[in-house]
Each structure stands twice: as C-alpha cells, then as structure tokens.
C-alpha cells in the first residue's frame, strides 16, 4: 500500500511533507512532550510494535497475502495523533532500513496510512462503540484501510492529472487495482483489530482517549 520513491514528483511530495512535518511536531509535543523520560520509551515501544505488526502476513484468496497495518489499533488505543506520530516513525524506519516506501514519499505515505485511515477508523469506532463494540472495532479496522488506500489512489491520481507522462496509469485503473485487494485486506485488518482489542481487554489494557490507555 506504500507509494514507492519515484512514483510521485516533488509537486506532490513536498506539499505533503510540508503538511505532515508540523503535524508530527505538534503530535509529538502534545502527547510525548510532557516528560522525555516517560515519553520516549513509550513512543519507541509503540513504534516498534507497529513495525512488528506490519511483518505479520495474512494470506488472501488468489495465492497472495496482505500485511496488517495496525495503525487503526494504535488510534483506538492511544488516539489518532499518537498513531500518526508512531506510523511516521514506522515509515521512516521502513524507508531507511528496508527500502519500503521511500524518503521522498514519506509525507504522502504518513498522511495516508498514519493520519487519514486511523482518523476515519477512530471516528467510526467512537460513533458505533456504545451499541456494537466488536462490530465497531471491525468496521474501524476495515474502513481505516479503505480510507488509507483511497488517499494513496488520490495522490497517484493527482500525479497523473499533473503529468500523465510521469505517472502513466489512469486513475480508474489504479483505483480498481488497489481498492479491490484493499477490500479483502481490510477484512483481515478488521478481524485483527477485533481479536487484538478483545485480548487486550482480557489482559487488562483499557481502551481510552488519546494517551489514556492504562493497565487495570
């Protein structure tokens, strides 16, 4: 789901980075700035958790597999801005260490995978959690992945509109190619969110507002 380096021009990547960078700074200051001593290890732990979650591959029909994102789970547990900061770090580590995504597209990927998707999932969960907590968690995971994918499709469509020779695939083709596997992958992400939330509840980790997760 990441956009690789070279698929988007600076006309798209630089504005995205200009939007993402202040949001990272604001999110880090808001949630991790009170005390560096307590904040840094927690932030490192959450980022590491997201990196490891993304290595868990789920097979989908057709012989391929999708990987979990886990950013919606972080958003449900700690709030969307914490998820955005942690996912930004995850993407940076993946770009530098693994060559997944890339350094020029970091802003676009972070906004799509770390902000828009988790924010949509978090809002959906808040709206539906009182009557249907499990269905809300499933829908949050599924919808988060769809919104992230739609945002990536939107960025590629914008690049195609700006210069079709730079990114030649038409938006309709990209949308079908990305949204159909994403709908299947979203089922896995939704089920994963439900299982993880249920087990975290049993383990005594309460789901709360931003930064409000605590052990019973």
């Amino acid at each position, binding site marked *: 789901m990441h956009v*690789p*380096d*070279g*698929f*988007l*021009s*600076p006309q798209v*990547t630089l504005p995205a980075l200009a939007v993402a960078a202040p949001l990272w700074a604001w999110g880090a200051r808001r949630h991790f700035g009170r005390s*560096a*001593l307590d904040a*840094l*290890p*927690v*932030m*490192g*732990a959450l*980022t*590491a*958790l997201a*990196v*490891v*979650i993304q290595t*868990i591959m*789920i*097979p989908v029909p057709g012989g391929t597999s999708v990987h979990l994102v*886990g950013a919606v*789970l972080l958003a449900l*547990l700690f709030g969307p801005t914490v998820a955005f900061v942690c996912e930004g*770090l995850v993407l940076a*580590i993946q770009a*530098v260490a693994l*060559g*997944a995504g*890339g*350094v*020029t597209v970091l802003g676009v990927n972070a906004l799509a995978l770390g902000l828009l998707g988790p924010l949509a999932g978090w809002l959906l969960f808040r709206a539906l959690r009182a009557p249907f907590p499990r269905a809300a968690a499933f829908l949050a995971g599924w919808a988060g992945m769809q919104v992230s994918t739609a945002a990536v499709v939107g960025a590629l469509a914008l690049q195609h509109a700006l*210069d*079709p*020779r*730079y*990114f*030649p*695939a*038409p938006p*309709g*083709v*990209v949308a079908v*190619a990305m949204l159909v596997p994403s709908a299947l992958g979203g089922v*896995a992400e939704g*089920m*994963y969110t*439900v*299982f*993880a939330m249920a*087990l*975290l509840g*049993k*383990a005594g*980790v309460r789901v709360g507002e931003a930064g409000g997760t605590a*052990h019973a």
Partner: protein
Amino acid sequence: MPEPRRSQALLAGGLAAAFALSAARSPAPLAAALALAALLFRRGIVRQARRVARAVLPVSLLLAGASAAAARLAGGAWPDPAPYALLVLRAVTIALVVFSVLARADLQRALLPFPTASRLLVLTLAQVHALRLLATDSLLGLRSRMPRKPGAVDLLRGAGGITAALLTLSLRNARDVADAMRSRGF
C-alpha cells in the same frame, strides 16, 4: 569534515538528491545520476546494488508491470512502455543513492545534536529487535501446536494474541527503560 557535520551533510545531500531525482522526467538525468553514484560511491556499490535488486526492484517492476497490464485490460492495447520503464528507473536510482549515502553516514552521530531523536532511534530499534524475536517465537509456537498449516483466521487470532503480549511487554519494557534512564541521570 569532522563528525557529526560530515554525516549530517551527507544525509542532507542525499535527501536533496533524492528529491531532485524524483523530479526527473527523462532517462538521461537518471542514467547520469546512476553513473555519478557508481563513481562517487564505488566502494560498496555492488553491495548496495544487490540490496536495491532485492528490496526495491521487484516491487517497482511488479507495480509498473501491473499498472501497464491493467491499462492494457482497460484500454484494449498495450500502453507506451517508456513511462513505465522510467518509473522503475527512477525508483531504482533514488534507492541506490539513498542506500549508498546511508551506508556512509553514521545516523547515530548525525543525530548527536538532537539527543531526544537519538535516544528515540536507539530505543525503537532495540524494541523492534526484542519484539520481532517474540513475534517469531509466537508464530512458530502457533504452527507447532496445530496439526495442519494455520489458515488466515488462525493467523489473525494468533496475531491478536501476539499483539496483546507485544503491547504489554513493550509497555513494561518502556517503564523499565524510563526507570533506567532516570537512575542514570538523564
């Protein structure tokens, strides 16, 4: 140039080069950049090229090929291959430059003037290592307990359990590290 200035300059130059390369709209500047990178970073270039061939080339080829095939299905004729080839060439060139720069820059030293970022990097990488070991052990345990190959639902249920263990372990680790840092006067 002394450290950390040298690593910082290298990283800043690499980032600027990556953005400049991402603006390339013809193969000539990319080919020139590849030749220049091979000249500037000749020590270890084969290793970095292998890394690019393993990590970046297959994904870029797959994405560009799938896009061209989807356009063929939608339009009825194969599209002009040049822009698709350029996508792959751009991705590969940027990756080679970034990997070569990263191999020469010392990230830890570059972050020395930013102690918070430096500690965060160390903590994150250490936790990634610890959690990956736990995740691998848990997945192997799941496979050994099942009489058949685990399916998607088994993996998802296992992933949920692993996440609960990872989250509780990582938060406990976080508290331990915070205590250790406090006791060392940070």
